[in-house]
């Protein structure tokens, strides 16, 4: 193998490319050649560093010097000073805003790393089908120490002290839930893992089960020990075949090692886990509906109380936790409650996994400490908005959440702040929207989802949401009135107040939050008959600007319905009664002669 060469890593993420990272690479290469260094130094373009706010960023290895806000004109200095004279270029080093010190020491260079991986600690590191690799990374150590060194009360106490709250969306303190279930006396209790992940665009739980199934198994066994249950059930959707397979492999291996089954690690504690498959109904993520579905009944929620902790699966005390909640447990026990509660902010401890999706450059799975701002998530980790468009809104909490605007970008993300802002944490879906998205259509999209997924048991949700959808549909067709907006908000509040379960109680949230935050957009639809984002087809009109049109006939030839007429080299004309507003002419025109009105 070759000796250590110097590499200059230049961020080639979309954000940095927009500020001339490609030109920097070119200049660096020219300078390096001019100084005859091309055999010793390589310039490499990389993916996003997740620090776009200070881009373009450059890292020199092996000495790990990190330069921020680099310009193409800095290339000569970097080569002269750093590569030839061997001293870091002070003026480009990152300046710590807290103390104004320049940071060049490689051990302190992770300031730009905004993510902390706890629940995802093993995802992408270990082979999920090899239990040894899990054990080598402290796997099953938490179960081992819990069984041999702590009483169930002590473990529950640790979880309580850590401040861990349910990651499925509700945010109920996990330790307290375990304690309640423990204190109910019964001959049989159950531990249930809720892996019925249904929010559109969310895939956190699937990734954990696919990448680190043993962490969930271990945590369920610990939970069983704490609450006094010998049986665990994982409720997982059948459309996650890979997750199911990996989980099955993991269960078999854990049984072979005696980490599940009778008398685990010689402690007299016995525990085993079975899988239950869901057919993909969204409402089954609600714990009472989930339990009914597992019992073989219709997946419909029932009134709480009694909570599952008291009367759950077949009337027995049942502790239901989400996949991500479980994935946090072994680390809390291994590293202690204090360590865990040092991450996050006052009322929300630890980290949260988000599935970052939508119009953002770096779509993916991220894990951030509670209290980070939406701006950092979207513009640093997410790399900003795609195609240089303008940020419009971010939807958190799935169909039950709300849309937040640029005004809320700087609030710290935690359970309470998101609710205060009119959205919610939810299970961790985060969908970013840009200026081209129509908020009325977005609200309609989410409502379509809840309409499909409503179980139909209670009237407000079954019929109320249908009516809400009708009104929204009317608005997107340009037939809405100002009174409709009042009706929307009145009906939304009634549904919120009178629905039986969480699905109905939160289903109007996307409508209410868009009504509040994007009122002008609703008004433009109902008073001017316009869709500012240009999404509502019925409100659009394509017209050809006679002065710009060169008569190239491209639109004429591409129009699928023959709505465009005109002679060659003469301005063309769109027959509005034939136009289906497909937008092909708009995309094809090379002369910007077609306007959307």
């Amino acid at each position, binding site marked *: 193998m070759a000796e250590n060469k110097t590499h200059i890593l230049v961020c080639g993420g979309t954000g940095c490319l927009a500020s001339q990272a490609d030109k920097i690479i070119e200049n660096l290469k020219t300078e390096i050649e001019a100084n005859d260094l091309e055999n010793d130094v390589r310039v490499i373009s990389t993916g996003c560093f997740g620090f776009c706010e200070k881009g373009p960023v450059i890292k020199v290895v092996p000495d790990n010097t990190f330069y921020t806000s680099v310009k193409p004109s800095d290339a000569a200095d970097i080569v002269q000073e750093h590569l030839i004279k061997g001293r870091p270029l002070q003026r480009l080093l990152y300046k710590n805003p807290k103390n104004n010190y320049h940071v060049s020491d490689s051990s302190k260079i992770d300031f730009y790393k905004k993510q*902390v991986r706890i629940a995802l600690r093993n995802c992408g590191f270990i082979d999920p089908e090899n239990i040894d690799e899990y054990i080598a990374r402290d796997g099953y150590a938490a179960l081992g120490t819990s069984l041999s060194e702590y009483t169930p009360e002590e473990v529950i106490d640790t979880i309580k002290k850590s401040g861990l709250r349910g990651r499925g969306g509700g945010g109920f303190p996990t330790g307290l839930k375990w304690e309640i279930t423990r204190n109910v006396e019964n001959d049989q209790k159950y531990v249930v893992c809720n892996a019925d992940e249904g929010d559109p665009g969310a895939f956190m739980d699937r990734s954990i089960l696919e990448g680190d199934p043993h962490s969930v198994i271990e945590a369920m066994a610990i939970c069983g020990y704490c609450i006094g249950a010998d049986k665990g059930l994982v409720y997982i959707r059948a459309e996650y075949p890979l997750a199911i397979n990996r989980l099955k492999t993991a269960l078999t291996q854990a049984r072979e090692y005696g980490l599940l089954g009778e008398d685990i690690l010689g402690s007299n504690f016995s525990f085993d886990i079975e899988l239950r498959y869901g057919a993909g109904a969204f409402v089954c993520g609600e714990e009472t509906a989930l339990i009914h579905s597992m019992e073989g009944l219709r997946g419909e929620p029932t009134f709480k109380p009694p909570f599952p902790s008291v009367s759950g699966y077949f009337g027995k005390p049942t502790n239901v936790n989400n996949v991500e909640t479980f994935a946090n447990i072994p680390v809390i026990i291994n590293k202690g409650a204090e360590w865990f509660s040092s991450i996050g902010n006052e009322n929300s401890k630890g980290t949260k996994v988000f599935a970052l999706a939508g119009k953002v450059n770096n779509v993916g799975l991220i894990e951030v400490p509670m209290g980070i701002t939406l701006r950092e998530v979207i513009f640093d980790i997410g790399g900003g908005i795609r195609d240089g468009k303008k940020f419009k809104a971010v939807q958190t909490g799935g169909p039950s959440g709300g849309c937040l605007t640029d005004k809320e970008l700087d609030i710290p993300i935690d359970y309470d702040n998101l609710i205060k802002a009119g959205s919610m944490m939810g299970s961790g879906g985060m969908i970013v929207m840009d200026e081209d998205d129509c908020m009325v259509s977005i609200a309609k999209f989410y409502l379509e989802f809840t309409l499909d997924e409503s179980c139909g048991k209670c009237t407000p949700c079954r019929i109320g949401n249908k009516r809400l959808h009708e009104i929204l549909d009317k608005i997107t067709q340009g037939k809405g009135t100002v009174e409709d907006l009042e009706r929307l908000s009145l009906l939304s509040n009634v549904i919120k107040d009178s629905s039986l379960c969480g699905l109905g109680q939160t289903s109007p949230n996307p409508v209410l939050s868009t009504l509040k935050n994007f009122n002008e957009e609703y008004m433009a639809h109902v008073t001017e008959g316009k869709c500012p984002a240009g999404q509502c087809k019925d409100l659009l009109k394509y017209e050809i600007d006679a002065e710009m049109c060169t008569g190239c006939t491209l639109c004429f030839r591409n129009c699928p319905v023959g709505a465009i007429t005109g002679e060659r080299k003469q301005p063309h004309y769109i027959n509005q009664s034939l136009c289906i507003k497909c937008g092909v002419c708009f995309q094809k025109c090379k002369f910007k002669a077609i306007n959307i009105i």
Partner: protein
Amino acid sequence: MKVKSLADLKKIKSDVQQKIKLREQGANAENIVQIKVAMATCGIASGAKEIMNFIIEELDFRGLDGIVTQTGCMGYCYAEPTIEVVLPGKEPVVYGFVTRDKVMEIIDKHVMKGELVDGIIPVSYKTIDE
């Protein structure tokens, strides 16, 4: 094999860690490269399985000693397929948007000469051990 006590469990842990260490520092270690392929649903949908097979074939074809394993989602769904290359004694390096051509380039330059190539995804997170 049954694990009967916490001590047993600790022994497995140290055995496996020892094995990994041997792999990294043993007699032959200099020639052994470890490549992990992200094989969650997102990776597989983008062709990770095919890439994994191709890496195995290519290493074999060149007579290079390597361990190619699967792993879960690394989180860079926008850049699938993603792979992680670990040379003995070096920091792991993650590459995104890996195609067959990229595999050839990575093996030719990174694995055989220790030179990095375009397309690295920098580590943007802290682990629980930091």
